[in-house]
């Protein structure tokens, strides 16, 4: 047996069902087939994925563009090497009777977010920015992960959420709602693989193998969602219900594909969108310097 190269992924979450393609490694061995011993480091948000990687606990971060922009803005030398979810999965959900149909309708409303550090808040800011509003025009409430409860209780007018969140919310009896999808305004990707520039320069062949393995696992999950849903029951921490697993995996499969990936293959970036996202962040004051996205997004390792 040849010795495997260790690669640990620092994720933004606990081992949940939507990343079953990573968790299925013991069953499917996509990474082992590439000579890689895969590890998974749980995190609490995209920021912690990057810090866990920077602290040396992992080599690759599974993180969101916002955290990526921020880390770059703080002067970290990072590169994004794979576009995991090219589709923006964030949205704003409100009961029909509030009459919130477009981003502009949010003005003056009370909106829940997971937490002040979460993607829900940042994407809400992006959404508001697209229609010339800022956080000052609305009231932000930290509602925690059970953020649909305050909506049901009428404590907020709307809540910022994600596509999977909306799905389970509906399962839990959310009722009739209007959904404003962020991707309709600015379709910044949701998650990417990010590594340090130094690691990128030193380990290109290994990373290439890593991305091949990940691409294969993603393709498997797209092709065999039922099998993935079954594996998630035991491999993920929240996958006790196979039917729910299947739906969530399907939702994630959709967000893993876009026009760009259909044209170029899984994992490819739309650099223009990422640049727009960075510019929006700059305009919002979330970062301080203009970022040259072409400098920090490297598509050369993405498998054909």
């Amino acid at each position: 047996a040849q010795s495997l190269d260790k690669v640990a992924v620092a994720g933004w979450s606990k081992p949940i069902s939507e990343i079953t393609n990573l968790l299925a490694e013991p069953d499917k061995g996509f990474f082992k087939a590439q000579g890689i011993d895969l590890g998974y480091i749980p995190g609490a948000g995209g920021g912690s994925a990057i810090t866990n990687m920077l602290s040396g606990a992992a080599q690759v971060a599974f993180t969101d563009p916002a955290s990526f922009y921020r880390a770059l803005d703080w002067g970290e030398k990072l590169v994004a090497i794979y576009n995991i979810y090219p589709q923006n999965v964030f949205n704003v959900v409100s009961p029909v009777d509030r009459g919130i149909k477009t981003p502009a309708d949010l003005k003056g409303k009370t909106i829940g977010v997971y937490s002040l550090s979460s993607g829900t808040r940042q994407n809400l800011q992006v959404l508001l920015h697209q229609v010339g509003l800022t956080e000052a025009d609305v009231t932000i409430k930290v509602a925690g992960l059970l953020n649909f409860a305050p909506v049901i209780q009428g404590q907020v007018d709307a809540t910022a959420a994600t596509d999977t969140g909306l799905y389970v919310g509906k399962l839990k009896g959310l009722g009739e709602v209007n959904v404003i999808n962020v991707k309709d305004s600015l379709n910044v990707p949701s998650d990417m693989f990010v590594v340090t520039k130094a690691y990128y320069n030193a380990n290109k062949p290994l990373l290439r193998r890593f991305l091949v393995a990940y691409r294969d696992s993603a393709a498997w999950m797209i092709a065999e969602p039922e099998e993935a849903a079954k594996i998630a029951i035991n491999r993920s921490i929240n996958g006790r219900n196979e039917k729910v697993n299947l739906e969530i995996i399907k939702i994630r499969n959709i967000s893993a594909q876009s026009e760009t990936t259909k044209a170029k293959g899984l994992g490819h970036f739309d650099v223009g969108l990422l640049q727009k996202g960075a510019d929006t962040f700059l305009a919002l004051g979330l970062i301080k310097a203009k970022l040259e996205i072409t400098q920090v997004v490297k598509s050369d390792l993405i498998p054909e």
Partner: protein
Amino acid sequence: MQRRLPSLALLLALLAGWEAVVRLAGISALVIPAPSAVFAVLWSGLVTPGFLWQHIWVTGAETLLGFALGCSIGFVCGLVLGEVEPLRRLLWPYVLATQVVPKLALGPIFIIWFGFGMTSTVVITALICFFPLLENTMTGLQAATPEKRDLFRMLGARQWQTLLRLKIPSGLPVIMAGVRIAIVLALVGAVVGEFIGGSEGLGASIIAAQGMMDSTLMFALFIAIAAMGLLFYQLTLIIERWLLRGWLKGTIT
């Protein structure tokens, strides 16, 4: 058992009331789940297929390890800081600082120092539960009466002997109160530790359940945690009774 009856009756009454409120008011399961649903989840978690046991085991191990570590350190530090006044003056601000800084936010540092998995959680648990023991040990050591201190001085007891044979036994009831607080905090610490960096255990499961908006599972997890807490607490009571058996004799009450 008989003596537990009223408490059990109250439990049943509370559960019945809760179920009634949830059903009659039609509260969404997202807000507060019905106890019947919670118990169904609990049943499936504990009996078939029993997916909870693995998490219970992890959290239990972390709690007990962290408790043992935290209590030992807290007790020893209590002795040392209680006895050596200059050291107390030197280190006390740092002891306090470790306590007030939120463990939740220290996550990255812990990961650098202790890596992922159980070690970090055990360290967080120990850090959380050591303070009550420290405080109560230091307070307990003051409990010996001046006459008994004089006795020990007269008998030529070394400082460590006075500590071991007089001050610790005198302060034992207070020290044990610290242990009771510590076991409760240890469980809290283990769960919080898993919030930060665990991929297994009841705390990690709570975060996952929250992500799935599965309030029913969340409440089931709360119940599992509460049951563990009660169990651990009872165990410390038994240990305490054994340690204090000499104390209890001949106190006419």
